[in-house]
């Protein structure tokens, strides 16, 4: 644990001294993958001074189960942060670990739609008939993230993670309104899933790698896993209760 923290702060030190923080554009590899951390860090609307929204240092197990490169993970991270931003109430998606939550989910049953009917023939169908894509969620996310990046390049000649928050919002809005073309699925569907997954990561039990420190629950004043409310259920007063996770049982 201590060692991991040390490693991560070394990476921050690296960023401080590497010139990336000054906005140097370096494509690909380690440095290119980290560009997004700092560019967003300069935005006052998403990041109070001294805390980069893409700062994953609070996450104890910061490996990837699904993602392969930092660039894609950063696109996801920044998109979730725009959906659920840090504010005066508390942390946003990134600090809550939402990107890691989604990474784990995409690597498992959720990502492979293993409990859903995925046999053909496939047809578009009416909206009332629901999900009809041949793609799994993992495939939709992968493509969606590529498309977010592509759209950022098209509109601003820049990677998604290097955009200003308002520019990210503009692109996410275009997805939500289905104004971007995707293959085998729709941008609106991808956005809907991304939004849902962000909230799931913010508010699920911390064992799923999101809701870091139960801070999602704290903001909402949801006490998590409590055995019983029988002694207070008739009280007129609002009950502020320290949350408990399943792991704390």
């Amino acid at each position, binding site marked *: 644990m201590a060692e991991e923290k040390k490693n991560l702060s070394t990476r921050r030190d690296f960023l401080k001294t590497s010139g990336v923080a000054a906005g140097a554009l370096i494509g690909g590899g380690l440095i290119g993958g980290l560009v997004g951390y700092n560019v967003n860090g300069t935005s006052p609307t998403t990041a109070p001074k001294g805390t980069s929204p893409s700062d994953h240092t609070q996450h104890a197990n910061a490996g990837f189960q699904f993602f392969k490169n930092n660039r894609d993970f950063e696109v996801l991270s920044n998109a979730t942060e725009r959906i659920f931003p840090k*504010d005066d*109430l508390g942390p946003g998606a990134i600090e809550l670990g939402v990107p890691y939550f989604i990474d784990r989910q995409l690597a498992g049953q959720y990502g492979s739609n293993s*409990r*859903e009917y*995925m046999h053909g023939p496939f047809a578009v169908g009416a909206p009332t008939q*629901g999900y009809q894509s041949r793609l799994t969620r993992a495939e939709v996310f992968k493509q969606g993230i590529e498309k977010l990046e592509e759209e950022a390049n098209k509109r601003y000649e820049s990677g998604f993670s290097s955009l200003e928050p308002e520019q990210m919002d503009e692109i996410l809005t275009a997805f939500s309104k289905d104004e971007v073309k995707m293959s085998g699925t729709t941008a609106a569907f991808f956005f809907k899933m991304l939004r849902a997954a962000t*909230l799931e990561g913010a508010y699920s*039990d911390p064992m799923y790698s999101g809701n870091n420190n139960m801070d999602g629950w704290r903001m909402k*004043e949801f006490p998590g*896993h409590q055995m019983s409310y029988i002694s207070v259920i008739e009280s007129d007063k609002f009950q502020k209760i320290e949350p408990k996770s399943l792991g704390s049982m």
Partner: protein
Amino acid sequence: MATTLPKVDAVVVGLGWTGGIMAAELAKAGLKVVGLERGEARNTEDYLKVHDEYRYAVRYELMQNLSKETITIRNHRKMPALPMRQLGSFLLGNGLGGSGTHWNGHSWIFLPYDFKIKTMTDEKYGPNKLSKDYLLQDWGVTYEELEPYFYKYEQTLGISGEDTNPFWGKRTNPFPTPPMKKTPILKKFESATQKLGYHPFMLPSANLSEPYTNPDGAAINSCQYCGFCERFGCEYGAKSSPEITVIPTAEKTNNFEMRFRANVVEVIKNGNKVSGVKYLDTLSGEEFIQEAEVVVLASYVMNNAKLLMVSNIGEQYNPDTGKGTLGKNYCYQILPGVNGYFDEQMNTFMGAGALGMTIDDFNGDSFDHSDLDFIHGASLSITQTGVRPIETNPIQRDTPTWGAEFKKNSIYNYTRTLGIGGQGASMPHKENFLSLDSKYKDAYGLPLLQMTYNFTDQDKALHKYLTEISANIMKEMGAKTVEGKNPITDYDIVGYQTTHNTGGTIMGASPDNSVVNTYLQHWDAENLFVVGAGNFPHNGGYNPTGTVGALAYKSAEGIIKYSKTGGSLV
């Protein structure tokens, strides 16, 4: 080749509430019963770590695995039907206890009006109140005839309630246990509805107000108001469920054997009887034929209908000719309602699935419909079920659905929003029915069940009227903003609505318009019984389980009689 197993007195397909009731009653009467359940065994010990919204409520841990089997859906006959690839509008159960494990526990008895809906509507409003496209019919049994079975069901579950509702049928007996605790949230609804001249009462609940031992000796504990009922099992054994009541009752007799991972694929018919069922061991892939004197289909609405269809038992309903009864009168539940946004914080995260208060002033024929373009109505309730943070993000209509403003508003409103909801009646329509799909198949090679369903003018009118009534109550409760539900348009399977599907294997007084008689005995096969909400010729203004339970008890009594005498029970 299928292995044929020694004949038993009865084989029961599916071990939820209806299968459990059947198993208990038949085994107590000395019949040798085999229960086939396609899912797994489970019990209270499996629910100790159940307070996990993501796994159970969002990812549907206890529900049917659609990769094996689903249905196809279309809104009307001209639309190509497509598979329901993900769960949404309703949640199909699986495993021991079925939906009885993850229900909320609202325990209603349909109104006297429901059972004679055709006769009473025609008498009061004339024969043309609804057009001929609505296939309204009496159930062939009256409230008075069913009342003893209702009580038997309530005693088995230990239902908590109070008999102060002036609009429901006359009760001979009080509820087995007193009502649940009346919380400040419920009291808001109580005083508002009283001020408006309505008649609020505590919702009959299967989350028990006190420890209870039922007549069979099964113990149910006292609800802790932990807020995790619907989509969860109860870790206290305080929500009446088959696995803590009727299943142990059946097991105690030594006349009952359960087989899990046993997926029935066919009911075998010979002449005017059935000889048993064919099932697949889903682990080994082996096929078995379980022969039986009596076959009871006690799976869900969908699968009961499908098993009859794939086994060619009964005549498929044809909407062009009106002929055939199998698949006819598929109904759903209409859900009017309102959200109210308040200034003060409330303990909305606490509660129990069936902790609520209700009015029936606008249910059944409690109010005059002469000047209205619909019949029936809805029970209107406030429930304090315990809202959970992933799926409860209340925002007003003009609020963005993501971003900074969304976050602030959804967090602020989470403990400041109340809802009133109606369980609205659903009337049968000639274009709403179940059949077999011609294109898509399940994991066992059988066709998927096909649902053709859309909301009707009757549904839309009912929804609008009851939403307005709900909004008035919410205003009276002091909400600073009141938002009624949007009017309903086309039925959409994406968002959750309710798992109150009914019809398709309906009961009645005549083989001309029903699949089973009033003992749920199949008209075309005297030793085949089909049990569940599929028997409802229409859906009433309440949650269905209580009525399902009562019909199962009546049917069980019929089967015991049949096992001695044979022949038609009517």
